């Protein structure tokens, strides 16, 4: 049931190849096999967004994605440059408290950006509805999102 399979995927621009149990989630593949711990376990059932990464430019919940089913390049928080406008906006708007949910929010917003367009506040609220934060009241996160992606 839990045979080992080869996973060969591109992560943050580098092709990696590992023999892993078939049940290995993408989140565990990133965290355990590659040591990329920026993506977090929050709920492990796809409801909190802390594990969000991009697969082929689309935001995906890595905790409910099997590593073996990944098709396309993976981008994690570690692959986001420090001068990315979304990262800079989080900084400028003091949008993190404990920081545990932050990478998931950033990756989700990068996915929104990849989608194109200039989302209005309601669209951003809808997009961020998949990410839980327990420390803030979300307003600074929304401010950062509007600043980086929104319509003026």
């Amino acid at each position, binding site marked *: 049931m839990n045979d080992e399979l080869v996973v060969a995927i591109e992560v943050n621009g580098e092709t990696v190849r590992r023999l892993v149990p078939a049940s290995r989630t993408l989140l565990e593949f990133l*965290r355990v096999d590659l040591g990329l711990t920026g993506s977090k376990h929050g709920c492990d059932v796809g409801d909190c967004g802390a594990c969000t990464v991009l697969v082929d430019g689309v935001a995906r919940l890595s905790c409910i994605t099997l590593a073996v089913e990944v098709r396309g390049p993976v981008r994690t*928080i570690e692959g986001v440059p*420090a001068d990315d406008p979304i990262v800079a906006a989080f900084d400028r708007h003091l949008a*993190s408290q404990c920081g545990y949910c932050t990478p998931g929010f950033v990756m989700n917003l990068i996915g929104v950006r990849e989608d194109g367009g200039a989302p209005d506040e309601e669209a951003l609220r809808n997009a961020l509805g998949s990410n839980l934060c327990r420390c*803030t009241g979300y307003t600074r996160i929304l401010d950062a999102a509007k600043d980086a992606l929104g319509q003026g």
Partner: protein
Amino acid sequence: MTPLIKLNASSPHESARKHVSGAARYVDDLPAPQGMLHGFAVASPHAHAKIVSRDGTRARALPGVHAVLFAADVPGSNHIGPVVHDEDLLADATAQCVGHAVAVVVAESRDIAREAAALVDVVYEVLPAILTIEESIAAKAFLGSPHHMARGDVDAALASAAIVIKATARNPAQDHFYLETHAALAIPEEGGNWLIYSSTQHPTEVQGEVASVLGLPRNAVVVEVPRLGGGFGGKESQASQIACWAALGAHVTGRPVKVWLDREQDMTHTGKRHPFRTDYEAGFDADGRLTALRARVYADAGFSLDLSQAINDRALFHLDNAYYVPNVDFQNFTCKTNLLSNTAFRGFGGPQGMVVIEDAMQRAAERLGKDPNVFRVASFYGDAPRNVTPYGMRVDQPRAARLWEELSASSDYATRSAAIAAHNATSSVVKRGLGFMPVKFGISFTATLLNQAGALVLVYADGSVQMNHGGIEMGQGLHTKMLAIAGDELGVPASAVRAMDTATDKVPNTSATAASSGSDLNGWAVRNACAEIRQRMAVVAAEVLGVPAAALVFADGQVGAPGGPSMPFAKLANTCWVRRISLSSTGFYATPDLAYDREKGFGRPFFYFAWGASVVEVEVNALTGEHRVVRADLLQDVGKSLVPSIDLGQVEGAFVQGVGWLTMEECLYDKRGRFVTHGPSTYKIPTIGDVPADLRVHLLENVEQDGTIHGSKAVGEPPLMLGIGVVSALRQAIGAFASPGHEIELALPATPEAVLRAIMDVRARSAAGAPSLHG
């Protein structure tokens, strides 16, 4: 680039760059030490059961399993608990709740450990279980010792009161739902010593519990905490069991062991905010002033004492909230049930106490068809003699009246209130309500001995600084504030100071980072340590510069006399080293003037009070019970803010957490005592869609506090109770669906279902022309 952190100025969180880049490490992110194994707890499926037999044979046979451990495998004490050791780390004779750990499996991987856990054979004999407060009261299954406070003559005051409210107030539980679940990593070191990484708010307690479980002195155990992904009280006492499982597994196998709980385990192994039931009678005079309150307060402790007594006591201390009550008779009972052991949660009983008196205010107003704020404002603490709490502590600088005045003006209360009345008169399906909530919250651990803190500051010969203190950074910005204080005291940019991970080998005997006390206590300790070093450095600088030490100013990385000679701090540090002057110091602080006699229910348990107020507007749909907060205005007294950006974030986040507690977060157990809302699909915390689009947060100005660190006040817990304003807003909106004169029966949390029931109930009574339920 290091973020710019400065005292009394809005500053970024010291770890902001690490948060946003994914570089911030939490316990589960630490690199695995060589040979690390994984621990997994086997939980009792029964609320109360005798353990007839236990057998790990089948589990041990699974390849990759290194150990299956039961109570008998504990080398030291199997009894843990923060106040009294009344919990079995691993259930021995009996399992006391569903989720009580019976065994720990240690294996090569977590997957194997989990698989093996299902193969551990435990035979139970199910025993009768207590699953509700009412069953506990009937069985007189009380823990701890009741606390009693009395003043005046309640019977006489109730007899002469213009209005008497007799009711039962209940508040729900709440899961902490910190985004980072519990984790611990135990590493055996040479010589029988231990290094434990733990996601705890209380490393000293973890140190003590691990030492006790392993039968070692505390100096054999170092506990280190990188940072927490949220705590909210849930990692104050609950972290110990997880760390002890890891340490036990590592002790037996001789290898590092990590125990990490997934969300379901976290929610089904650890305690929640205490649900309370309070039976009360409140009297008001004809002007709406509170004259008397009698309350019997029952807290659902769960299966062990944990911190329940102190939480229940804090509920008593906050039954008065912001109101002077001349005649009181308060008593609490801490009820044992066979449920998860309830624990600290932001507010620590304070919210549970305040919910009671606010219920009384609402009911009095609803019965008479009046504005509840008439009752609130008339009852505020004020000048003598209306400035003494039920426990005899003087309320200096009562701020409720000022908060009401400023907030009602800035929130445009009167105009909006009139607009809402007009809207409600014409709208049949959707009604609105406007609620006001004042908060007075006592600051200090009520166990006086806990009000102490230590720090250790090290200045290196190049002028760079390491700062250690006993507090935990869990997102609340404690390290940011401590860096601001250290930078200010040493006259260096905060970027020259490094906040070290909290560790028990740097600062011993710490208190939990709890009770909102983190910056109050550690701030003074850090400042005192820096001041000591600065004093020594000043003696050297005075010699070098040829000016009196008393004339020296440490600022902007320079040391010198104003208008006179100066030298860089770094150069002075090097000179001190060359001259063999000590450049490290501890700092210590103990809060002065605290004295409380619990037997008499009298004294000064708090150093001061933190005040705040909220005005909350809601909209309620009568067809579905759905509701939303349209706008909220918050005003919080944080003294002279150490770092306003941090404080504003705390106020906003606490308010939203309070609204979550009272409107959407529903903890449910089934009839067998199983916690069934154990994930985000069934347990709803606020999302971005649940917070008001219009949220206005402000800090009260010109309120520098005497005797506190740089005139600041605590901020962690008090604003959570601003969320109670949503209840009064909801009750007003619900009442608008019926004729005036009916008390609202609204269960908490006020989910759409509960709101719909309340609307149907009040409409039915209104239609029947029946008097109010408690009328």
